[in-house]
């Protein structure tokens, strides 16, 4: 399917050709297992180390603090479950937010069934966590604060530095799900007081199925996947060498192009928001206007329902999303949109457009034209519209 307009980069991104290029030798030529002793495998070991170094540098971390995983979900699961295990002697209370990704929320649900207590802190109408509520939620038994860096649906960026300070003040480890932020925003784990950080390569033009968990030295850890001695004995499983190499390359490119790329995205994003707000009635933009991922737009169109909108956009070759991709198939309205206070039926009419630097002004203008047409058509069909 050529000449589609891909506006769903928060769901996943195109792997950059340079990234695939970097991965290729590690399939059929340098296919050795990095744990082997012979020279042939040494080259894999070096390639893995190199990728680890690129990533550590991008975060201001040490290479020994980066642990590769199979993606953001595994990293999130690991961070939470390991903390619960390792700090069991201190307590069993976790603080998180109401608008986390399901990889955090469902893990919390699971942990709650196993005796862990979880406080879900509210966010304001822009999706920003209530810091006073967060600090008040701290108990002597609190063993972890986990708040996402930037939200996958509405793009809101959290006050990570402030959360880091609160966590430090109370000596509580601080984890952040940075799956949407890493490679798109500047992140220095030391400046921000982050103790653990999850990321996933396919959100920054790297391959799917590879992620990492940053774990600050001194944080107690336990394994999630037990077995061989890979990843400093902390994450078993033969290393996904091509994936790791691809992740390294993607991070290298993401860091090098960040400024220019996000400037371009912001320009396109602003054009998109401006035109829709001016030309479509009964619409709102969800999420913070300023503290927002460069490439994220999230609209709610009153009186219409998201899926219908998506299908009609699709028929016009526009790839978009309503809520997060991994929850499609679910009929519930987005927990994020409910958390920022949208009523049920408006939450249902939401549309997420997440851009990349490859999008053009022409594409954005075409998309706005189509949105206008489709919203109009669907509203004519809606029993809510003229009520």
């Amino acid at each position, binding site marked *: 399917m050529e000449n589609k307009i891909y506006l769903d980069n928060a769901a996943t991104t195109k792997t950059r050709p340079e990234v695939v290029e970097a991965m290729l030798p590690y399939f059929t030529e340098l296919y050795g297992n990095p744990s082997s002793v012979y020279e042939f495998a040494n080259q894999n070991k070096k390639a893995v180390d190199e990728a680890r170094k690129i990533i550590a540098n991008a975060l201001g971390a040490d290479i020994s603090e980066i642990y590769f995983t199979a993606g953001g979900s595994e990293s999130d699961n690991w961070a939470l479950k390991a903390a619960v295990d390792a700090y069991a002697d201190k307590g069993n209370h976790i603080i998180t937010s109401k608008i986390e990704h399901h990889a955090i929320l*469902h893990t919390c*649900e*699971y942990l709650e*069934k196993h005796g862990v207590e979880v406080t879900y802190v509210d966010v304001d109408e822009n999706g920003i966590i209530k810091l006073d509520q967060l600090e008040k939620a701290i108990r002597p038994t609190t063993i972890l604060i986990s708040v996402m860096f930037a939200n996958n649906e509405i793009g809101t960026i959290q006050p990570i530095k402030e959360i880091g300070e609160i966590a430090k003040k109370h000596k509580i480890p601080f984890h952040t799900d940075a799956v949407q932020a890493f490679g798109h925003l500047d992140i220095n784990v030391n400046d921000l007081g982050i103790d653990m950080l999850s990321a996933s390569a396919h959100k920054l033009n790297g391959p799917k199925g590879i992620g990492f968990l940053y774990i600050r030295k001194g944080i107690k850890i336990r394994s999630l996947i037990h077995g061989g001695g890979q990843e400093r004995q902390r994450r078993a499983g033969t290393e996904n060498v091509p994936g790791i190499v691809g992740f390294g390359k993607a991070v290298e490119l993401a860091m090098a192009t960040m400024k220019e790329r996000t400037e371009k995205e912001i320009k396109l994003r602003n054009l998109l928001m401006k035109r829709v707000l001016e030309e479509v009635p009964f619409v709102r933009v969800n999420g913070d206007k300023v503290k927002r991922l460069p490439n994220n737009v999230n609209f709610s169109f009153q*009186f*219409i*329902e998201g*899926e*219908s909108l998506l*299908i*009609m956009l699709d*028929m016009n070759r526009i790839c978009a999303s309503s809520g997060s991709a991994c929850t499609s*198939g679910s*009929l*519930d*309205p987005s927990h994020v949109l409910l958390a920022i206070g949208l009523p*049920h*039926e408006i939450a*249902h009419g939401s549309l997420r457009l997440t851009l990349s630097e490859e999008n053009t002004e022409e594409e954005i203008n075409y998309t706005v034209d189509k949105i206008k047409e489709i919203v109009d058509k669907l509203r*004519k*069909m*809606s*029993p*809510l519209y003229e009520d």
Partner: protein
Amino acid sequence: MYTQKVMDHFTNPRNVGEIENASGVGTVGNAKCGDIMRIYLDIDDNGIINDVKFKTFGCGAAVATSSMATELVKGKSVNEALKVTNKAVMEALDGLPPVKVHCSLLAEEAIHAALWDYAEKKGIQIEGLEKPKSDIHEGEEQIEY
């Protein structure tokens, strides 16, 4: 995800609109997904459905089942219309994905609600027609973590 027939009815829905002074109007909502469907029936003195229109706030399946359901009842007698079940609508659409079966219930219930409204207005009873629920909620498999 959807069959060609569903896509056809979704893209070019038949009988969208309203009927002024309709013989019967039924509105139902689905508490599960928050979607809403309204059906207008124009029924003549012989109990034949002369015209039917709908408005739907809902997913692609909801729009398509509304459209197909209106086609299936148009020209039918009230008793025949009663037999248009959600299964019949789904079959006519060549099926729906499992997660979307409940959407077709919306169409069945909306027709029943419109017929109920018609019967109430006429002061008659339609055999086999129960007072429709205004909320449809179907059980779903609960995943244990």
